[in-house]
């Protein structure tokens, strides 16, 4: 048995088999639904993200641009949740602003970021 030389087609087969084994885990990672490991943090992060967005929408003035760095959110120190709210001019429409909220948690390589964006009129109707 010759271990040294595998032909290209053999390597492709090996790659295909490995991909078909690993792909479901990759999908679980991309939908971030791995049960038992991240589910609680994921739920909390999602609801916090929506809370941040609603708070940004309820702000009386929309024409300002706060700091663009992540800050730790009070009450979520246990999972190390950090949040960021940005209100920026809309790239296409001058009369609108783009609101973007982000939360992130976890450490490097295992960090996850959730983002939510919406566009609003700059001046209240």
């Amino acid at each position, binding site marked *: 048995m010759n271990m040294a030389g595998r032909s290209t087609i053999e390597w492709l087969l090996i790659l295909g088999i490995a991909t078909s084994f690993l792909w479901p885990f990759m999908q679980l990672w991309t939908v971030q639904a791995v*049960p*038992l490991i991240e*589910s*609680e943090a994921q*739920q909390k992060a999602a*609801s916090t993200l*929506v*809370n941040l967005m*609603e*708070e940004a*929408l*309820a702000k*009386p003035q929309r024409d300002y641009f706060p700091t663009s760095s992540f800050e730790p959110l009070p*009450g979520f120190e246990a999972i190390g949740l950090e949040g960021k709210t940005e209100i920026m001019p809309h790239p296409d429409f001058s009369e609108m602003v783009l609101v973007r909220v982000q939360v992130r948690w976890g450490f490097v390589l295992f960090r996850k970021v959730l983002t939510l964006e919406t566009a609003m009129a700059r001046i209240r109707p």
Partner: protein
Amino acid sequence: MRRVGWYSRELVLFLMFLAIAGGASVFFFFLSSRDVKSAQSDYVWSLQVNSVLDRVAGELAYAAQVDHPFEGESKECWYRRPAVGGALEPSLNQQGLILGDGMLEYVTRMASGTSKTRAFQGFENPLLRNVKKASFERRSSNLLVVSVTVQPPGTTGEAQIFERRICLRSR
């Protein structure tokens, strides 16, 4: 050609498969253990609480008028739904979310009295059980914060706080 004994690479392969099989069976035992089952039931429970609160938040965000926590904090919330097709609002008809006996309930209030509605957007009344604390806080004219402290159904878990901030679109 006759072969006697093992090649070293066969031994390595055999040991590797043995290790994978052993690890997999340990993992499956872990998956069917009681800890994992209680973790799963906790997860399902918090998912239910979150989905109820999401519906409540959606309903309050698009309410035509939020009457009761006009200012400050309250254990009840009274609001009016938008009327269908631009009809006039019924003058004395409010929907409400109230906390009583550790349960969050959805009720309807009319001039003749308060009645319990059977279901709220597909969720049975009471919406939440084992509620330790619930508050509806009006932080500004268009920001309402709903905060609920709920005890998981099991005996051991500690109470969890769920919070929703709601931008009131009618303002």
